[in-house]
């Protein structure tokens, strides 16, 4: 075998080994999925676990079909989903805006510093009752819950990244006579896009927490309400269904953010 052929042969082998590994990974992922759900079904039917508490995949599926047919699942899902999306966008946007204001005025940021620390360490969901009293038990207060939970942490993380932009990029702009707004638009903001995107990813999860807790408290509609209601009437099939739907849609939202990331961050890679 000539050296070139040998290299080609080795490369082919390398690619084959990569593919083989990928297949195995997929295989084990599928195994976990199947074992989990069939184990759950079996354990429930054989009464190894209490079917009243842990329900069973078949029952959840049955309930899913009924609730799709009578349209109630879609209504609840629609509520929760729109609350989460609004809360998420609002939280991220306001957080970034606050960070921009702090960057704009170093004096203000020094003054605000201890307050940010306090607000950040505070468990935001504890504000729920106050929000509901202030804004009424409605869509608005639940969106506010979804937003408030991510605003402060977004502010802190994004502001830190604004401050860490290499000052030499600012220097380049200053040699061209740039004003503060131009510096922000040309260097500070684009340099911080990766950080903003990664806070988006965190905020997806946080907004779900805020919204579900909000729905627990308001208890009128949505997936969070489904969980609380199911708990109160001891219908755990309903709780499980709600949890599974939440898991699916939270994942979808996360994937969308990743898609956005690939679209937004361009630097030739």
């Amino acid at each position, binding site marked *: 075998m000539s050296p070139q052929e040998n290299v080609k042969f080795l490369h082919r082998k390398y690619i084959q080994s990569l593919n083989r590994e990928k297949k195995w990974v997929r295989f084990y992922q599928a195994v976990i999925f199947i074992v989990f759900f069939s184990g759950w079904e079996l354990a429930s039917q054989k009464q190894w676990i209490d079917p009243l508490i842990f329900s069973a995949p078949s029952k959840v599926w049955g309930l899913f079909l009924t609730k799709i047919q009578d349209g109630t699942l879609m209504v609840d899902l629609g509520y929760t989903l729109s609350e989460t999306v609004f809360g998420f966008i609002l939280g991220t946007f306001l957080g970034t805006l606050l960070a921009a204001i702090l960057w704009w005025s170093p004096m203000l940021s020094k003054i605000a510093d201890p307050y940010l620390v306090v607000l950040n360490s505070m468990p935001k969901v504890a504000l729920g009752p106050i929000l509901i009293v202030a804004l009424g038990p409605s869509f608005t207060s639940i969106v506010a819950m979804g937003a408030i939970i991510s605003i402060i942490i977004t502010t802190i993380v994004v502001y830190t990244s604004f401050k860490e932009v*290499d000052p*030499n*990029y600012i*220097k*380049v*702009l*200053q*040699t*061209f*006579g*740039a004003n503060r707004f*131009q510096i922000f638009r*040309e*260097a500070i903001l*684009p*340099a911080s*896009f990766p950080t903003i995107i990664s806070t988006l990813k965190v905020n997806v999860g946080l907004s779900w927490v805020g919204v579900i807790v909000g729905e627990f408290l308001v208890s009128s509609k949505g997936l969070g309400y489904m969980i609380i209601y199911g708990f109160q009437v001891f219908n755990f099939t309903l709780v499980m269904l709600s949890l599974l739907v939440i898991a699916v849609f939270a994942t979808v939202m996360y994937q969308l953010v990743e898609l956005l990331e690939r679209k937004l*961050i*361009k*630097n*030739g*890679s």
Partner: protein
Amino acid sequence: MDFLKVDAVHHTYFTKTSAVTALSDVSLEVEEGEFVSFLGPSGCGKTTLLSIIAGLFEPTEGTVTLEGKRVETAENEIGYMLQQDYLFPWKNIEENILLGLKIGNSLTPDKKAYALKLLQEMGLKGVESQFPKQLSGGMRQRVALVRTLATGPKLLMLDEPFSALDYQTKLKLEDLVSDTLKSFGKTAILVTHDIGEAISMSDRVFLFSARPGQLHKTFVIPKELRDETPFNARNHEVYPAIFQTIWKELESLEPAGER
């Protein structure tokens, strides 16, 4: 009237724990169309002086004027290329070279065409839509130079533009830059650690001493070297003698063993 006049400039950096005097009583003049170099040991305040001339901050004492006007008020008349290229990684090459024009709200079709032509003259045709990290160090340095030249500055300042490049690229770029600047009749200040570069590229060399940064001595480069390209100047018969003189002077500034 002098083109650029640095008058009794003194600069001290203040921090919470220290006050570092970077420049002490520096006065010098540069004529229009002249190419001068600032040479000196690390930390003698070369970058500080360029930043002050660029009007990025005011010196603690003293004034800098360009054509009789204080540099703090001058707009886009001074081009300053930093110690590294600092191309914006999220902008492609075209967006990078047009940045200065965009900031100055003067992005007209002519000026855009001019910038693209400069890019071509620097031997960088067809990279417009690429991103900085796809280019080699030497190419990036040339793009940074185009970005600085695109706004048509009256005075160009280069802070160690070639120090991060390999020797061969450096020699080629020296010729290219010298040639480009000569053809525009631009006034330029070059900061360098490299004695050979200072001699071969400039009309005058200002030697600085450190702690505090002061103007130590000025060398006028003889005419026969000035008329040569940097590469040929390095091979000229009078070159070694000047090199020796400046080298000795530099050595006298840095006590043996402290380098």
